C-alpha cells in the first residue's frame, strides 16, 4: 500500500532532511528557510563572502538534465558555505532506468558524498534517490520533470516577501505554460502554504493542467482577467517545442494574447512586481520594456536565489543524524 504519513523529506523529528518539494513542506519550515536566507543576503557585501558552516562537507551536483544557471547558483551557494563541491554532468536523453540511477548514487556515496543536488527529467526521480541513500545523506531536488522545482519556488516566495511583506493580502498571477512547468507547481504550493488568498493561473486551455482548482487556484484564459489588480505577476518561459506541437500555433499568436506588454501591465496594481524564473524569451512571453522596466524584479531574483539555496543547504545539514 502507499506510504501514509510522514513525507520522505522530513525525518522522524519533523526536521527537514531532504528538500524534495514545497508541497507538504510545513509552513514553519518554509518560513524558517526564508528567514535564514536573510542572513545570507548581506554576505555578498563582505570581503570574505563565505561562512565556515559546511566546511568538510561534500556536495555533489548531479544534473541529469542540462542547466548551467541552476547548477552554477547551487555551486556558488555551496562554496559560500565552505563546502567542497563536485559537478557531475550525467546528461541522458531518456529516463535513466532505476538500476543505473541507483548505481550512480551508490558509487558516489562510497566517495563520501554528504549531499546530492539532483536535477532529472523524470518526475519523482529525487524521491527514488532519497529512498536509497545512506541515512546521513541529504537530497536536494533541483528540478524533476514537470513535478517540482522547490528552490525556485522558495526564491520566488523570498522575492515576494522582500517586496510585499504580507502574503495574506496578495493577488498573484502565474502566466504561461503551467502544464509543463515545475516552477509553476512549486510556486503554487508555496503561495497557498503561505496563505495567499488569490492565486491565478493564466494561459490557453492547452497549457493548463486539469486539477488546478483542487490546488486552490483560479483559472483564467485571458491575460487581462488574470492580471487585473494583481500584486505579483510571475511570467513563465514558453519553450520552443510547445510551439511546434498541437498545443500552440505560433509564438506571435501567443505573444498577442498572453505576452506581457507595458499596456497590459497597467491593468495590474501600480506597485505590482513582475517576476520571471529565467531565461526569458523576449517578445514571446514578455516585452523587453517590461523585462527591463521599473516593476521588474527579475535581476534581484538571481541574488535571492543564492541566499535561499544557502539557507536550504544549511538547514538540511542541520537535521539530526539519527533518522
Amino acid at each position, binding site marked *: 500500500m502507499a506510504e*501514509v504519513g510522514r513525507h520522505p523529506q522530513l525525518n522522524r523529528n519533523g526536521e527537514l532532511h531532504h528538500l524534495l518539494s514545497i508541497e507538504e513542506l510545513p509552513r514553519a519550515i518554509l518560513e524558517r528557510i526564508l528567514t535564514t536566507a536573510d542572513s545570507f543576503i548581506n554576505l555578498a557585501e563582505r570581503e570574505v563572502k563565505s561562512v565556515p558552516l559546511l566546511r568538510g562537507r561534500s556536495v555533489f551536483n548531479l544534473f541529469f538534465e542540462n542547466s548551467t544557471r541552476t547548477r552554477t547558483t547551487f555551486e556558488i551557494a555551496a562554496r559560500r558555505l565552505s563546502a567542497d563541491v563536485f559537478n557531475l554532468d550525467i546528461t541522458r536523453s531518456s529516463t535513466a532506468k532505476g538500476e543505473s540511477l541507483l548505481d550512480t548514487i551508490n558509487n558516489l556515496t562510497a566517495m563520501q558524498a554528504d549531499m546530492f543536488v539532483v536535477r532529472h527529467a523524470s518526475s519523482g526521480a529525487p524521491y527514488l534517490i532519497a529512498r536509497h541513500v545512506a541515512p546521513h545523506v541529504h537530497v536536494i531536488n533541483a528540478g524533476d520533470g514537470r*513535478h*517540482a522545482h522547490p528552490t525556485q519556488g522558495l526564491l520566488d516566495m523570498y522575492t515576494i516577501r522582500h517586496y510585499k511583506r504580507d502574503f495574506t493580502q496578495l493577488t498573484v498571477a502565474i502566466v504561461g505554460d503551467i502544464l509543463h512547468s515545475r516552477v509553476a507547481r512549486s510556486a503554487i504550493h508555496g503561495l497557498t502554504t503561505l496563505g495567499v488568498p488569490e492565486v491565478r493561473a493564466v494561459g490557453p486551455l492547452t497549457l493548463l493542467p486539469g*486539477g488546478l482548482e483542487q490546488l486552490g487556484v483560479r483559472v483564467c484564459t485571458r491575460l487581462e482577467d488574470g492580471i487585473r489588480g494583481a500584486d505579483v505577476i510571475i511570467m513563465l518561459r514558453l519553450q520552443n517545442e510547445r510551439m511546434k506541437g498541437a498545443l500552440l500555433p505560433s509564438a506571435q499568436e501567443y505573444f498577442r494574447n498572453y505576452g506581457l506588454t507595458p499596456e497590459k501591465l497597467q491593468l495590474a496594481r501600480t506597485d505590482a512586481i513582475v517576476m520571471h524564473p529565467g531565461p526569458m524569451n523576449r517578445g514571446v512571453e514578455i516585452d523587453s520594456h517590461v523585462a527591463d522596466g521599473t516593476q521588474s524584479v527579475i535581476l534581484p531574483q538571481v541574488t535571492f536565489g543564492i541566499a535561499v539555496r544557502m539557507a536550504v543547504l544549511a538547514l538540511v545539514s542541520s537535521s539530526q543524524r539519527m533518522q
Partner: protein
Amino acid sequence: MKLAIRNGRVVDPASKVDGRADVFVDDGRIVAIGTAPHGFSAERTLDATGLIVAPGLVDLCARMREPGADGALKVESHAALAGGITGVVCPPDTDPPLDEPGLVRMLRQRSREAAGARLYPLGALTAGLGGEALAEIETLAEVGCVAFAQTGSLPHDNSVLLQAMRYARTFDLPLWLRPVEDTLAGRGVAAAGAVAARLGLASVPDVAETVALHTVFELQRATGARIHLCRLSSSNGVELVRRAKREGLPVTCDVGIHHVHLIDVDIGYFDSNFRLDPPLRTSRDRDAIRTGLADGTIDAICSDHTPVDEDMKQVPFGEAESGEQAIEFVNESKPNLVLMDINLPGMNGLECTRILKSQHPEVAVFVITSNNAENYRAAAIEAGASEYIPKSQIRKELVRILSRHS
C-alpha cells in the same frame, strides 16, 4: 473416494446457491449438496467452517511468462491453483505473439504437462499483434483459442477493426478489446486529474477510454460482432457500457482487481508499484466500478497478472533464504547460473552445491564468499562449483562470468 465437505458457505452462481450447506463428493464427482445421499458414508470429512466452497475461479487475464524460462509456466499455473483459480485465460501478447496454430498447440501441450490451472489461450487478432493484417483466427479457434484479442489499445486503423469484426462475426468468434484510443492516451502514466497535475506526471484523459468505447459500439452496431471489453477504468466508461447493454449490444466487460480497490492518490510519493495500465483513476471512478459490479454492468474481475518484464532481461536471481529453498527454487525455475554463498542458514553452501550439481549437472554454480581460505576454495571445486570467487572481486568477475554464460 467418498468425501464430505461440511459447514462451508457454498457459493454457486450456476445453481444460484449462496448459503451454508454440506457438499458430498464421490469418486471425483459432486453427488449431492445439502443432504447426504442415501447410504453415503464419508471416508474423509473436511470441516469447511468459515470457508467458502465454490466452483473453481476463472481468471480472465493472467500472463504466464510463456514462452519463457522452462518451468515458469508450471510455477504460474500452480500459483493460480493455490489461489483457487482453476482456469486462466492468457492474453496473446507473448513473445512471439500467439498468431500461429503451432504456437498455440505447444502452449496447450506445456500447460497440460504443467498440470496446474487449465489454460484458455486468447489468439492474436492481427498478425504479430501489429494491428494491420488479420491473423488466421478461424484456424486458431480450431486449435483451441477461445477468443481473439488486440492488447494495449484498439488497432490504430479503424478500417482494420471494422474488417476484423466483420470477419469474426462470420465465424461467430468473440473479440476481446482494450478500449483505449492510443493517440489520446499518448505516453501518459497516470490518470488525468488532481494527482497527475500535482505530481507532474504525463496523464491519460478519460476520453482515451470513452472515445474508444464509442468507436467499438458504433462498429458493433454495423457488424453485430461479439465484443468483450478488457479493463474498464472510468466512471464515464462504465456508464457507456451500461447504455450499450441496455440497447442490446452483444458486449461484456471486465475490470482489473486493482481498480476495484486502489485510486490515484495511492501513488503516494511516486511509488512505482502503482503505475498500472490502465492507470489508477479517482475515487469517483472506483465507486462507479463498484456500482457497475453490483448491478451487473461489469461482468467480471480479473487479476491482470503481469510479471514484471525488466527482471527477464537479466539473469534471474532468486533470493533463497536457505539452502533447502535454493534447491527448491532451482528445481522450479532452472536457472542457467547460481551464485552460492557459503554461509547459509540451515544447509551450508557447499552441501547445497553438491546436491544441486548432482540433481542439475547443467546448472553452473559459482561459489562466492568473503572467506578467502585456500581450503574452502578446494572444497568448493570438489563439491562441483565451477569457480570460487571472493566477494571483494565480485563486480568484475560477475561481468566476465555472465558474458561467458550468455
